[in-house]
């Protein structure tokens, strides 16, 4: 099999996940897109492992071992990520990442984003600090 087939497929999957991470608004959909990117990396690892092990340049099966490690880390990541999303949802009542702007600098100019929700954001910050 030509190596370009799995490599190009994993590139396209990675860029699809990149678009999802940048364009989605719900935090859980962002996590799904992160999973797509991780799977693209896994496909790349498996393809190169098969190529290199058949070319007798890698006897350790490092690509497949790394794929297993990546899958386990992705499972841990999705667990922690969902716990964080649920904690944020419980504290704020939303999982909309466009509304979580506590660490954003308040803009002095138009004032539609920065100045108006500053007071509840400050209240939540003090509550979170306490």
């Amino acid at each position, binding site marked *: 099999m030509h190596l370009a087939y799995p490599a190009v497929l994993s590139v396209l999957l990675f860029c699809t996940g990149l678009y999802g991470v940048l364009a989605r608004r719900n935090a859980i959909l962002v996590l799904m897109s992160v999973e797509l990117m991780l799977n693209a990396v896994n496909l790349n690892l498996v*393809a190169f492992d098969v190529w290199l092990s058949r070319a007798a340049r890698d006897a350790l099966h490092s690509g497949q071992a790394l794929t297993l490690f990546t*899958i386990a880390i992705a499972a841990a990541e999705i667990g922690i990520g969902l716990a964080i999303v649920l904690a944020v949802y419980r504290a704020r009542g939303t999982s909309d990442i466009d509304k979580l702007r506590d660490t954003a600098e308040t803009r002095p100019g138009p004032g539609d984003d920065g100045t108006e929700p500053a007071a509840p954001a400050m209240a939540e910050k003090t509550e979170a600090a306490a």
Partner: protein
Amino acid sequence: MTLAASSHGFLSPTGVEVAFLLVGIVTLGAAVITVTTKQLVHAALWLVVALGGLAVEYLLLTAEFIAWVQVLIYVGSVVVLLLFGLMLTRAPIGRSPDADSGNRWAALTVAVAAAAALVWVVVDAFRTTWIDLDGAAGGADGGSTAVTGASLFQSWVLPFEALSVLLLAALVGAIVLSRKAAAEGERPQGSTNKAPSDKGKAPSDKDTAPSGKDQAASGKEGVR
């Protein structure tokens, strides 16, 4: 490499390549629907198709063990976790028009530019590289469970054990995150956190409250 290039035709796909291409098209289509659909639960279900397609691709690349691990962990547990997360955050069932944020055109530009650059580089770099899938090493299948287990427990034991510690840490971390949020969320929500949390919660409560009442009403009718 030049010998391999001369022994293979340039654009004469084998059966495995055709199967890989077809499954890849299905996988990529499911992934695109996952990141573009307006219905949140449908996104999780299309993610199942994408991950299952990737498992088939692993099988075509003779990595059997990785394929079944993919089916077990991703399709079996990660998607279920994502669905639970969608339900616990009261994601709207049906179309939600604000699933994409305002910067989706910038995101599309970045993704298409990255895809073009990476595809160009990858195709240019591996133009004359072929994977020998026919088992040149005397039928020793490189991705079978025996070979993977031997290499995992001979060469990769130390990372494997470190990974189990990491999984334990993730487990404890998830429990601590949810417990701490529950313990702190109960106390101040009556006193201080009322105004900001209600402000955020009002639309979602409006969305879900009628369905809850309907369910309660139907439950009562069922009891009667």
